């Protein structure tokens, strides 16, 4: 009995010393497999059109959180109204975790184009973060569509005009261009559909 105790102690105590000596594994584990991520990329569920985002900005949707992933300098020069700045290199910093990893707000990343924002999305999405999206086309496309919308040809279908009206309205509401409406009212853009993703939960317990 005693010898068994000594043997066990000789096995377990060194293991305990090892585990106490090595730093705990705090690496964030990938929550999505490469295949799952590829599926989401193929579906493009992460993209929000500038129209949908503009609509939310105008409506002052409280769940919207625009995140500028460009550098601090670029952010200070110009950024979308209400956006906060988390440069791409800082997205894994623990200070930002509470902003990024949550399930209340819709975090929409943007950069000049889509690339940086999409990179941020991919990294965080793989960690299983919820409610993160990308502004389609980034600031460039935003400027093109919202700030300086192109008037559709007179032969275009009605909804082209409606879109144009909305963009003109949005542009003026957001402080760009001049209000020049073709019909006077600002039709509301279709509400963005938020796709619910299954959330990984702790295993349920209970004895």
């Amino acid at each position, binding site marked *: 009995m005693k010898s*068994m105790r000594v*043997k066990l102690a000789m096995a377990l105590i060194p293991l305990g010393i090892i585990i106490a000596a090595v730093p705990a594994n705090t690496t964030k584990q990938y929550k999505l497999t490469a295949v799952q991520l590829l599926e989401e990329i193929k579906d493009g569920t992460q993209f929000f059109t500038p129209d949908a985002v503009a609509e939310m900005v105008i409506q002052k949707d409280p769940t919207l959180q625009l995140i500028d992933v460009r550098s601090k300098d670029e952010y200070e020069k110009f950024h979308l109204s209400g956006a906060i700045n988390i440069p791409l290199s800082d997205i894994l910093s623990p200070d930002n975790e509470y902003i990024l990893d949550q399930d209340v707000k819709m975090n929409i990343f943007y950069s000049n184009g889509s690339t940086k924002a999409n990179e941020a999305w991919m990294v965080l999405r793989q960690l299983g973060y919820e409610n993160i999206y990308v502004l389609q086309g980034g600031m460039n496309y935003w400027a093109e569509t919202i700030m300086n919308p192109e008037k559709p040809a007179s032969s275009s279908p009605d909804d082209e005009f409606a879109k144009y009206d909305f963009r003109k309205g949005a542009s003026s509401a957001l402080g760009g261009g001049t209000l020049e409406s073709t019909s006077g009212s600002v039709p509301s853009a279709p509400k963005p559909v938020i796709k619910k993703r299954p959330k990984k939960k702790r*295993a349920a*317990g209970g*004895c």
Partner: protein
Amino acid sequence: MSKNSNKKYWNPYMGGVLLGLVLLAAFYVSGRGLGASGAVKSAVVTGVQTVAPSHIESNEYYQKYNKSHPGGPLHNWLVWEMLGVIVGGFVSGAMSGRLKWKVEHSPKITSKTRLIFAAIGGVFFGFGSQLGRGCTSGSALSGMAVMSLGGFITMAFIFGTAFAFAYFARKLWI
């Protein structure tokens, strides 16, 4: 001395290591530890549901249980685990020739006394396991393995109280 009867049992340290590995397997497979009283609770809830379904509706605790266990008792992890325990215990007992209907008791008390106290002990344990959110295996053992504060508290109070009352119950055992 008790040497003879003890020899048939495994060395406790070996048993402990193997039990630890079983517990680890449970965590690896399903992210939760072992448990026992939860399975009995499942059986109780199912029983009540069969006998008096309307009663379930009016009781908050049953409602809470049903909400957290969709799919009924046959989809309950602990129920299947306890069915496994019956099989595993039976196989082990069969292998070492311990299968026998009997009432184990101290020579100082009768079988009847032992049975009565076993039942009383069961009532206490059943009640306590619900209040303490788990029994020795579910709360104390599994809780300690994941370093849960609650697991350590429950463990300390189970064994502490049992030690404190051991003197008064000594006639039952020695």
